[in-house]
C-alpha cells in the first residue's frame, strides 16, 4: 500500500482531486520500471474499448478517475486507477453486469487458489457510499 500523502493538499483551495499543478508534492520520481502483465492488459483493453469499439471516450475514463476521493486517488497507482475506471465504465455502459463481474471474480479467485497462487480477497470499492454499507 503506497504511503498516504493527502496532507500535501492543505493548500488545495477546493480544486478537484487530480488537479494538483502548483502544489508541492515533492520531487518527481523518474525511475523507469517494467510493467506487469495485468497493466499491459488493462492498457490494451482501454485502447480497444475507447478507440476501436467506441464503448466510451478517454474523457469518461478521466471523469471516473477524477471522481475518486483524495485518499483513494493518492493511494492507487496509475494502472490501478485505469483498471477501476475500466470496470466501472463497462458496467455503466451495460457491456457487463455487476453480477457477472462479481461471479467471475469468485470463480477466478477459486481457480487461482486451487493452483496454489495468491489471490486477494479484498474488493476494490465501487463508490464511497458502497464502502459504508
Amino acid at each position, binding site marked *: 500500500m503506497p504511503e498516504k500523502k493527502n496532507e500535501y493538499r492543505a493548500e488545495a483551495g477546493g480544486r478537484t482531486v487530480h488537479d494538483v499543478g502548483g502544489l508541492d508534492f515533492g520531487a518527481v520520481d523518474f525511475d523507469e520500471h517494467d510493467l506487469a502483465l495485468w497493466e499491459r492488459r488493462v492498457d490494451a483493453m482501454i485502447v480497444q474499448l475507447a478507440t476501436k469499439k467506441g464503448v466510451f471516450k478517454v*474523457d469518461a475514463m478521466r*471523469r471516473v478517475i477524477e471522481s475518486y476521493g483524495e485518499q483513494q486517488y493518492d493511494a492507487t497507482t496509475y494502472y490501478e486507477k485505469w483498471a477501476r475506471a475500466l470496470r466501472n465504465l463497462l458496467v455503466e455502459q451495460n457491456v457487463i453486469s455487476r453480477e457477472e463481474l462479481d461471479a467471475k471474480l469468485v470463480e477466478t479467485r477459486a481457480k487461482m487458489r486451487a493452483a496454489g497462487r495468491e489471490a486477494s480477497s479484498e474488493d476494490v470499492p465501487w463508490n464511497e457510499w458502497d464502502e459504508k454499507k
Partner: protein
Amino acid sequence: MTMEHGTPPRYAKGDKVRVDDRDAIGHCRTPWFLRGRTGTVVSIQGTFRDPERLAYHYPGLPALPLYKVRFNQRDLWPDYNGPEHDQLEADIYENWLRPATPAPHE
C-alpha cells in the same frame, strides 16, 4: 489535427485572453492554477469535441476550437524566482476563454 464541424474560432494568434475563473463541474481540462490568469494565443490547435460532454457519453458537439495559450510564469506564481522571460503554454478550450480586458493595475 482533428477538424470537426464546430464553431469558428473567436480568437486569433496574438490575442490577449483571460481564462475564466469559474468552478468546474465534473470532468474539466482547464487547470486550476490558470483560472483567472491572462495569456496570449499562440496558435489554434484545431477543433475538438467538448471533453466535458464526452466524459458523460454525450457527442460533445458542436466541436470547440482549442487554443495554445502562453502565460508568463511570473503571472502564475507569486513567489516565482526564475528568469523573467520564463513562460508556460497550455491547451485551453474556447469555452474557458474570455477577451482580456486590462485590469486596473496593468
